[in-house]
């Protein structure tokens, strides 16, 4: 059974973010003028002000900036406990997701993580959520070499 999740707030510029995820990849806006990558979606570049941008796929790797484990239930769809992590992408921006896998072990700050899409149902329809799992040792070695 597909997990149920709260729907995200959707502004004009978020649609492309979720559409790309529905096609199996996580894309962020990359500025056509200064190449900086931004999240969340925005009408213009926070570095140079340019409105020209291209939705470009991210590598899907990053590191844990911090985490929290929810013990209180805030959403009917989400019984605790569950882990939320902030992840610094290799491309620079920071995003939020759930850490999949063992929910009882505290993730280490700085731990390398890999993207994994999770299909969920929301009140606004089906979504593919960008989620994170701890990278295996060989993935880490690859990330560091690159």
């Amino acid at each position, binding site marked *: 059974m597909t997990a149920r999740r709260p729907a995200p707030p959707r502004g004009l510029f978020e649609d492309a973010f979720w559409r790309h995820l529905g096609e199996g990849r996580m894309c962020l806006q990359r500025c056509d003028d200064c190449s900086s990558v931004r999240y*969340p979606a925005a009408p213009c570049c926070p570095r140079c002000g340019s409105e020209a941008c291209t939705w470009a796929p991210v590598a899907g790797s990053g590191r844990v900036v911090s985490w*929290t484990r929810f013990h209180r239930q*805030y959403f009917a769809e989400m019984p605790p406990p569950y882990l939320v992590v*902030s992840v610094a992408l290799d491309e620079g921006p920071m995003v939020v997701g759930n850490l999949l896998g063992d929910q009882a072990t505290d993730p*280490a700050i700085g731990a390398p993580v890999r993207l994994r899409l999770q299909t969920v149902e929301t009140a606004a329809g089906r*979504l593919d959520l960008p989620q994170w799992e701890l990278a295996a040792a060989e993935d880490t070695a690859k990330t560091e070499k690159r």
Partner: protein
Amino acid sequence: MTDRSRLRRAAGAVAVVGVGETDYALDHAALRDGKVRSDAYGFAATALKRALSDAGLRLSDIDGLVVGQSTAVERMAEVLAVDPSWSAQADAVNAVIQAAMAIASGLAECVALVYGNDQKSAGTQYGGPNAMGGERFLAYVQYAPWGLTSQGALYAMMANRYMAEAEFTPADLGRIAVGQRRFAEQNANAIMRRPLTLDDYLASRFVCEPLRLFDYCLVNDGGVALIVTTAERARSNPRAVGLAAFARADLSVDATSLRPRLMDYYHDAHRRAAADLYAVAGFGPEAVDSVQIYDSFTTHVPFALEGFGYCGLGEAAGLIRSGALAPGGRLPMNTSGGMLSESYMQGWNHQVEAVRQLRGETGDRQVPGVRHVHYMSDVAGKVSSLMYRRAGA
């Protein structure tokens, strides 16, 4: 670039001459018995009557109005029956700053700052499907699909990173809650007065790990009002409390992605505000006798103390463990019990406590010989700070 000589003139142009609060503990007890005493506007009106009485002024003396963010300007003015020459809406610290700006610029001479909140009886949600604040702070609602909406969860993430970097433990968070509770025990208007031990704290349930129940502020109804007027009008008033300085610095770039929160603990804004504040006041932490810190969560305390230079970065645990911040310490903090133990008035009750401390009217919890009280607020990276001074100090 800020202009410190103008800032000094603006701060020196005003004084707080009246304060008022509702009966937090009594109203909270009544609500537990099912009696809703009033709504947000009614609590504000009660607080304003008390502040006017405290100041020896009448409503007709008021020509400026600042209302808190939980009420509408027009409806508040309508309920209070004032048509001021100037009005605005602001959080607690910015209400004081805006009143000073209005007075310094000549828009008004006697400003009522009023706050009312019925968040408990009205069931305001600070997380979940109807989380408040998303229209002002996108990060409060952006991450709903991942179950992250509460402000507490954002502070929990700050705490986990900080504890991995600094010598700071969950027990240090507990010491903050315990110290403030000890002040609340000496405050008849505080809602939470039952003694709290570190063991009680450590045994309490997690909400968003590592934060526990006692790291979270209360949620209650109430109102607060202050009267701010010109320094000339206040000159002959021995109970008037002056402003040595005010300062502000924002961090909003990358705020939704949580970068300034998690990577910097808002220290860039703390440093900018502190530099202006201390330069304008002409003194720094060495001359501060008591601090009031916006404490919706215990975690605000180490970040504000480090950011404003009360200790080095990563060294707040030492200050906390020394007992400096607790009753009898050298830097008593949140002496009313703060929002963790007195009342969650979103920073407004701290202003009243600062004024009463400087008037010497706080009874058992009075800080001896207090000349300067420093208020610090860093909600969502918008750092604002006030340095209050005793009349004649």
